[in-house]
């Protein structure tokens, strides 16, 4: 009864257009008042406590680092370097867009930010060189989803915080699936490019490769600092995030000089907006999760599912379907926050590795980002590429096959998510 009321209230609020954060909070508070034995005081306490969860401090810091990186010309330099590397293949500029997205994903923890950063540099260039606007949009839209798979990743921070599993391990686990996805997408571009006889560019001289690398290396160093620092135990993911933010500030203002000191407050305010938007959802989701736990809803769900005698692969298939549907209607953080408290205990009961589960959930969220009706990447791509939403959806659609194929691969081959962290961290 409690569970039915909680979920019904949540969905009613969501669908009449109440902000996601308020929907989560109000559904929890009302359920608690009507059925629970907790008080408003304890919900407020839970809300406030969210900002004292140490791993979540990484959220504002990574967002700030991303804001400095997006505003500055970091993406442009990465595009130049990627172009020098692969531009001479047929469809080279599209491949460079993919590679640049992967590079940028390694300094940014957000998918829409990756689309904006790479897309605003790349789409015009691709159209000028003879690609159709739709093809360019499709590539950028999907490549941008790498932002949440390749570390650092805000969605991983949230998943790690809510399941109390290691964020450093998740980051490192995202590397190989990220490389595989980038590679598969590049091969896809190569195949399409050969069929459609797409343009290629002159091969860049070795000198150009070195020169563009030296320009881009300041940005690329960020992921080395983050992963190296966490791996070597120099700092926690939260400290790594703060170091990234200061590093990104330093690079943007003093090395690249793309941002003047005068504009630093604007970048800060920008980062604050995104931080508050996310944290408001997260804090309410913590109240929601708190209520789920005190009402023992995950236990019931767990017993029910286990009682059905579903094999692990069956559970994973059902989980993928559930996540894909949810991902269509909500943005990644909200989906992770709402569903993780329910599915995590079941997965643990079935012996699924928490890191593998995390990576699998992230790839599902990537697909949610490029599928209508609520695909954040679609909206952002449409505005960056100056295309209608319908055209963007149509342009992005064929890429779903690639994403789904990689999702199935990662779902049923846990080795892909686990080999790197096991190798490095044990």
């Amino acid at each position, binding site marked *: 009864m409690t569970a039915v009321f909680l979920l019904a209230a949540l969905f009613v609020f969501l669908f009449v257009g109440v902000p996601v954060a308020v929907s989560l909070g109000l559904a929890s508070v009302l359920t608690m008042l009507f059925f629970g034995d907790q008080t408003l005081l304890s919900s*407020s306490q839970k809300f406030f406590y969210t900002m004292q969860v140490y791993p979540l401090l990484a959220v504002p810091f990574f967002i700030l680092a991303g804001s400095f990186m997006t505003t500055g010309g970091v993406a442009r330099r990465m595009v130049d370097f990627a172009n020098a590397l692969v531009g001479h293949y047929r469809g080279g500029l599209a491949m460079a867009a993919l590679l640049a997205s992967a590079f940028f994903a390694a300094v940014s923890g957000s998918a829409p930010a990756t689309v904006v950063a790479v897309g605003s540099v790349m789409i015009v260039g691709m159209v000028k060189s003879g690609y159709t606007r739709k093809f360019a949009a499709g590539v950028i839209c999907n490549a941008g989803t790498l932002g949440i798979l390749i570390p650092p990743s805000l969605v991983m921070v949230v998943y790690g915080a809510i399941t109390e599993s290691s964020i450093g391990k998740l980051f490192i686990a995202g590397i190989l699936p990220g490389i595989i996805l980038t590679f598969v997408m590049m091969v896809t571009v190569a195949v399409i490019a050969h069929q459609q006889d797409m343009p290629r560019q002159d091969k860049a001289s070795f000198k150009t490769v070195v020169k563009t690398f030296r320009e881009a290396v300041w940005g690329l160093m960020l992921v080395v600092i983050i992963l190296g620092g966490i791996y070597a135990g120099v700092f926690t993911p939260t400290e790594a995030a703060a170091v990234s933010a200061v590093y990104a500030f330093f690079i943007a203002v003093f090395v690249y000089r793309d941002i003047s000191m005068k504009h630093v407050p604007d970048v800060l305010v920008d980062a604050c907006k995104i931080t508050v938007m996310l944290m408001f959802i997260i804090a309410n989701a913590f109240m929601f999760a708190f209520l789920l736990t005190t009402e023992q809803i995950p236990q019931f769900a767990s017993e029910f599912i286990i009682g059905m005698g579903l094999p692990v692969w069956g559970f994973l298939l059902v989980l993928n379907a559930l996540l894909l549907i949810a991902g269509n209607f909500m943005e990644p953080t909200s989906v992770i926050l709402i569903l993780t408290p329910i599915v995590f205990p079941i997965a643990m009961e079935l012996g699924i590795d928490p890191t593998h589960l995390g990576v699998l959930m992230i790839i599902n969220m990537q697909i949610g980002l490029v599928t209508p009706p609520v695909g954040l990447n679609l909206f952002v791509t449409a505005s960056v590429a100056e295309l209608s939403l319908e055209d963007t959806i149509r342009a992005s659609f064929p890429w779903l096959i690639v994403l789904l194929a990689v999702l199935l691969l990662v779902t049923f081959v846990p080795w892909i998510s686990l080999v790197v962290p096991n190798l490095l961290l044990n």
Partner: protein
Amino acid sequence: MQAVRTVFNRLEEWLMAALLAFMTVLTFVQVVMRYLFNSGWVWSLEATTYAFAALVLVGMSYGVRTRTHIAVDLLTRQLPSVGRRYVDLFAILACLTYALLMLYGSAVLVDRLMTLGNMARDIPAPKWLLTATMPLGFALLTFRFLEAGWQLLRRKDDGRASGEQK
């Protein structure tokens, strides 16, 4: 009145930016001090988390004003304008209910902390004072939702005060 508003709005932004800068620099300095001087401030982490809370709590109402809170407007967008108006009014009422309940809950929490009179762990300040940002934040949030509801009633804009799906 308008001038007061502009000043208040700028103040909101500056406060948020200052809090974020403070948190970032403090955490960064902490790492540097640990490795270079093998020392650190005990109060640093606690100060960071309270600054973080203040940032989010002040920012909630700012998000309503700048319409950055994500909402699902898939269904409401399909509605005819009359029906939509009622649905939007219901949504605003829900938001107000939420803000008021949380305002009450957090006020009770601060009151309890005052009665207990505990000091913070590492910062030389009473706990209730550091937590008082919460009722303050929810009071501001209530105000912004009231303002949005008022605008909706007067049809000043299309009433999506709760934020656009981006």
